[in-house]
């Protein structure tokens, strides 16, 4: 294993969620930069999951199964009920009834199959879109023509930090934030693209997670704007169209 020895024990505690917050912050900072330690953490989480098997034995009561199945049927995920077709009204002669019934059954089967096919096509289209999005993200992260900007606080510890990676030709922007303080519920952080000319452009709102991390991936931006800098402000929850002073963090391109 090539993970860093000085973090080995902290990684194990982190896998179990047993690392105190201050030590976790240090470790997570290291994890951002160290793929070997990230792999080791995943592996330790797998080892940890094995612990669950130590308990196996008790079986949930039958009522728990019933309760789940009832809850599921109350929450069907798609409206699957096919329309009722009053096919008999179209069949005046008894002799034709059997044939027509057979046809209707076939038709219903066909429409069920079509429904399933449509579901699968939907799923496939979604996966394609996700794949496309992932490709765009990776190509932005690795593009040689990407502008990489580091935004740091002017003063004070615990050092909130943001990294914006922007590819102008594709209007593609990835922003990663760390060490951000939580905000009151009615407030949000907003990222701004400050163009060479003109007013700051909203580039996404975000709220940090419990660790103070957040990201903004490919916010809607006008095409081909040349950025002079990026900045962050605190705004009302739904975001603003113009920044509210003061600017918390700002960084200009190299």
């Amino acid at each position, binding site marked *: 294993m090539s993970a860093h020895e000085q973090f080995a024990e902290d990684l194990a505690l982190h896998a179990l*969620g047993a690392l105190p917050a201050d030590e976790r912050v240090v470790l997570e900072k290291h994890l951002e930069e160290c793929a070997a330690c990230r792999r080791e953490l995943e592996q330790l*989480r797998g*080892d940890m999951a094995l*612990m*669950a098997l130590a308990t196996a034995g008790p079986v949930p009561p039958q009522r*728990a199964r019933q309760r*789940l199945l009832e809850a599921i049927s109350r929450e069907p995920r798609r409206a699957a009920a096919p329309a009722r077709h009053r096919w008999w009204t179209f069949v005046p002669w008894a002799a034709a009834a059997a044939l027509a019934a057979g046809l209707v059954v076939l038709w219903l089967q066909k429409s069920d199959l079509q429904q399933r096919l449509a579901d699968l096509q939907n799923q496939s289209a979604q996966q394609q879109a996700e794949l496309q999005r992932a490709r765009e993200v990776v190509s932005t992260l690795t593009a040689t023509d990407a502008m990489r900007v580091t935004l740091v606080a002017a003063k004070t510890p615990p050092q909130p930090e943001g990294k914006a990676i922007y590819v102008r030709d594709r209007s593609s922007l990835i922003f990663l934030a760390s060490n951000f303080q939580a905000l009151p519920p009615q407030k949000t952080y907003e990222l701004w693209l400050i163009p060479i000319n003109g007013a700051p452009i909203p580039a996404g709102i975000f709220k940090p997670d419990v660790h103070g991390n957040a990201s903004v991936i490919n916010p809607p931006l006008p095409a081909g704007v040349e950025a002079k800098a990026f900045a962050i402000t605190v705004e009302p929850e739904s975001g603003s169209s113009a920044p509210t002073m003061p600017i918390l963090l700002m960084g200009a391109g190299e």
Partner: protein
Amino acid sequence: MSGTELKGDLTDAAVLSAIRLGDENAMAALYDRYSAVVYSVALRVLGDTGAAEDVLQEVFMQLWRNPGLFDASRGSLGPWLSVIARHRAIDGLRKRRPETDIADVVVSIEPDMAGAAERARAMEKVRGTLGSMPSTQRQALEMAYFEGLSHSEISAKTGEPLGTIKTRIRAGLLALRKAFAS
């Protein structure tokens, strides 16, 4: 429940695909496969059958509502469910809001627990490994896993130095890994 039995031989991936299409029988099949693991973890953490049933319900309902939460390329379903159950149970134990984003849980683990025989073998191995550990090591691991205690809380409870607790927990996890590596 003939639909359920029919699905007994299917892989987790096939059952999940059916769940994505809204197949309730597939959900029942998945429940039959993993409810005991999920329930046992929750019961061990919470020590209360009613609360454990609630966790069981919550874990499976979450999967029903959003089967995409589980990413098959990053681990297998059984261990993933057990990890989610543990998180939820410990959150319940500490009366706190869910802390872990379910989609962030990655469990890279080899043993496939889809078949009853594989599950039984894996259980045997885990119990054997825990049983052969020094009791202080097993205790540290169990306190962290089932009680959700931090290493300093374990240290305060046992009177052992912090460093010793850290070492024991890591050695315990590595012993489990070794047991499944061979």
